[in-house]
């Protein structure tokens, strides 16, 4: 029943031909050269330092939630960079291609990107930023922090955790491959229908988009199950529900959203896939199909998805603000209630993304009111943060700066969201860049939480702080860049600029487009500062001696472990006595007590199967995209085989003996005092090799 696809197809290579490689495009040539160079340098360094075995043993096969979390964050940051490059291209094209007389180059009538290329750039930008940058970064924090915060040794399912990571990675790799083999979707991150149907998008672009999302969302769903079970089941003794830190609460609620929402996306894309591959007519414009059905399904997932991003963001901010205000969070119980209220309401509002579809005043009215209800719990949260700050002993350290700028963005983004929730307003600004500015305030709040989290939890994991001076330079350029770009964008929205324009025809927009570009320059500078911050911090890492709580004012349980956190987390499972356990222990001078007896610790063993599964899933996706049926069949059989092999593996794990644990703990304590990081790292890996 295979559909006739336009262009050549061969049994061996499917739709793949040499023409799929865009070697005549100068922008992609340069990109490819840079990516290849970076790749070679990394591979070279690994080989030169003989780290292949180390990489495989300690990272690729790990089931340790902290390392998995770190890898999630690294992938997220790499993709954030890729998405930023796309954003830079979009902004530069729009400012260059302004008005009827704008010059054109590189095959474009105006500017330097022809529509064919430009449309791929913004589609990739949105897909990457939401699914492959923001989501992995937040998932990474949840992986790292939640087990520590609730006093657990690891996630409930360490092996499945690794599977989730590698599925996400495989999908991200597919998106990157689309740069150099074939092309990406031109139908936006939302998959504008019926543009995504085969007759209108006959190439492989939509297939790249569709399969990448499918594969990564399986990973996200598995991770959601893992997080929920971990929080329900793995809390340390005494960690009752209402002693749980707010970040863990937000993780729980966000993953309930993830678990219930992602299957809807999976179904919507599977139906689209049936249309594209089997010739069904679920969403076609004729033959009994209904394209509104797709839009509806997409946003049933899409709106909960944006809250899937914002709730952990709220969680990070709820950890950072109390730590740097030296006060407990104000209104803890209302904070938790507001979190769940937001999660619940997020299921009732999806239609606000298509008020203009024409469902009528009753329907638009209902969804408008439902949307505005979100403002109540969100307002509760904002006031709680404000009251936490009020009369606090505030330290303006880098994480705190990010958190406070996040609050500012929440205010602007939330209020413009309320405007958009009013159908009468929405009819005038829907599909204008006003909407783009609204949601960039929100997603940049997510990015702020990302950087707040990176700077806040970094010393806990790695044993040294990120440089404050460069961190502040990074923060200020980034924040000012954000304000510059997006205030101009709000203005352009009111001036009637619609979204996704490859040619900004109206010359009246020029001044604001230039302002936006200036903001982009600030972003580029901020990136330089970010890189400098990393280099300087890593170079100076030996100069610091950090205690269990490097900030001195943290409040929650994760800071009770030695710094950096040993691979077994807690030598002895802690007994939790109150909310903000560490603050309580500090008050009574109990934060450094050592256990009298050590018990043996049961640890899971590493496994190479998850990374193999991820690779097979990536190959399978590639084969489906190019319609190489034999390869798809082989990789699918491979996946099934790996799952079967795994099910016969009892994976009994291994036990650390009490004496070993005691020795390692002593080692860690001495290391912290002597600040001999390299020596300690040596002992650390040695112990891990058991």
């Amino acid at each position, binding site marked *: 029943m295979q559909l006739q696809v336009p262009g050549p197809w061969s049994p061996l290579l499917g739709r793949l031909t040499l023409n799929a490689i865009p070697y005549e495009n100068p922008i992609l040539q340069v990109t490819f050269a840079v990516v290849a160079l970076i790749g070679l340098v990394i591979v070279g360094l690994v080989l030169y330092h003989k780290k292949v075995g180390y990489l495989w043993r300690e990272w690729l096969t790990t089931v340790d939630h902290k390392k998995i979390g770190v890898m999630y964050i690294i992938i997220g940051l790499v993709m954030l960079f890729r998405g930023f490059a796309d954003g830079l291209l979009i902004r530069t094209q729009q400012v260059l291609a302004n008005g009827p007389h704008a010059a054109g180059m590189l095959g474009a009538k105006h500017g330097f990107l022809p529509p064919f290329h430009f449309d791929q750039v913004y589609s990739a930008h949105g897909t990457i930023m939401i699914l492959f940058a923001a989501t992995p970064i937040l998932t990474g924090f949840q992986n790292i922090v939640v087990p520590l915060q609730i006093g657990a040794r690891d996630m409930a399912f360490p092996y499945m955790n690794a599977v989730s990571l590698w599925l996400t990675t495989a999908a991200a790799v597919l998106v990157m491959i689309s740069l150099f083999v074939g092309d990406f979707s031109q139908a936006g991150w939302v998959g504008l229908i019926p543009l995504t149907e085969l007759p209108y998008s006959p190439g492989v672009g939509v297939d790249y988009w569709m399969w990448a999302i499918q594969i990564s969302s399986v990973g996200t769903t598995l991770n959601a199950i893992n997080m929920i079970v971990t929080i329900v089941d793995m809390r340390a003794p005494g960690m009752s529900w209402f002693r749980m830190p707010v970040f863990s609460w937000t993780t729980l609620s966000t993953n309930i959203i993830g678990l219930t929402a992602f299957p809807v996306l999976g179904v919507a894309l599977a139906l689209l896939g049936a249309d594209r591959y089997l010739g069904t007519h679920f969403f076609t414009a004729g033959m009994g199909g209904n394209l509104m059905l797709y839009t509806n399904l997409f946003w049933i997932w899409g709106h909960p998805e944006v809250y899937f991003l914002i709730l952990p963001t709220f969680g990070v901010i709820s950890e950072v603000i109390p730590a740097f205000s030296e006060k407990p969070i104000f209104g803890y119980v209302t904070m938790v209630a507001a979190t769940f209220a937001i999660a619940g309401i997020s299921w009732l509002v999806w239609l606000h993304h298509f008020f203009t579809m024409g*469902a009528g005043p009753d329907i638009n009215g209902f969804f408008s009111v439902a949307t505005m209800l979100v403002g109540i719990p969100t307002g509760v949260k904002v006031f709680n943060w404000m009251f936490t700050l009020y009369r606090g002993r505030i330290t303006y350290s880098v994480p705190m700066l990010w958190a406070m700028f996040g609050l500012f963005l929440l205010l602007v983004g939330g209020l413009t969201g309320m405007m958009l929730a009013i159908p009468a307003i929405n009819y005038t600004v829907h599909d204008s860049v006003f909407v783009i500015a609204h949601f960039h305030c929100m997603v940049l709040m997510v990015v702020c939480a990302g950087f707040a989290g990176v700077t806040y939890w970094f010393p806990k994991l790695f044993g040294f702080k990120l440089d404050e001076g460069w961190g502040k330079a990074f923060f200020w350029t980034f924040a000012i860049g954000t304000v510059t770009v997006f205030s101009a964008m709000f203005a352009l929205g009111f001036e009637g600029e619609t979204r996704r324009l490859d040619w900004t025809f109206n010359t009246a927009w020029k001044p604001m487009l230039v302002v936006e570009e200036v903001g982009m320059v600030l972003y580029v500078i901020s990136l330089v500062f970010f890189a400098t911050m990393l280099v300087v911090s890593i170079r100076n890492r030996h100069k610091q001696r950090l205690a269990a709580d490097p900030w001195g004012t943290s409040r929650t349980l994760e800071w009770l472990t030695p710094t950096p956190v040993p691979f077994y987390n807690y030598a002895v499972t802690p007994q939790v006595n109150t909310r903000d356990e560490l603050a309580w222990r500090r008050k009574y001078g109990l934060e450094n007590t050592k256990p009298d007896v050590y018990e043996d610790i049961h640890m899971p063993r590493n496994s190479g199967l998850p990374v193999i599964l991820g690779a097979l899933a990536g190959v399978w996706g590639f084969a489906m995209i190019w319609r190489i049926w034999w390869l798809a069949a082989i990789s699918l059989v491979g996946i099934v085989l790996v799952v079967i092999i795994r099910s016969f593996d009892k994976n009994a794990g291994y036990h650390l003996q009490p004496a070993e644990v005691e020795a390692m703990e002593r080692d860690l304590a001495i290391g912290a005092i002597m600040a001999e990081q390299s020596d300690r790292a040596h002992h650390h890996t040695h112990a891990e090799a058991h």
Partner: protein
Amino acid sequence: MAGSHSDPLAHPEVRQGSAMRYIAGFVSTVVLMGAALIVTMRHDLPYQSFVELVGGLAALALFSQATLFYGLDISRAQIWKGVSLILTLPLFIITVGLTVWMFQSLNQRTMVMPTSAAAASQPTLLQ
């Protein structure tokens, strides 16, 4: 806590499964969903009975999966499964219910009506 999760076979949920149940679940699901597919592709039932039949087959498939794969029953040991299933019901009602309501109104207002008389009596987008 240590050791409690070392042997997956010790978990009651895992013990509950058996090869027979999985095979039965697989076969019944394939048969029921295959039947629905065939009915849909033949196009020979009147609309009303078609919807009833496919709806009935879907309900049966759901039931066989819930009992045979998921191991849902009303015993105390399985309470978490029951609770989590029930907690998703409101979401079903919200999403499916609001969708039906929305499409009804949307079709009335935007779709071409079968008879011209009906079309004339319907409000248009601009009204």
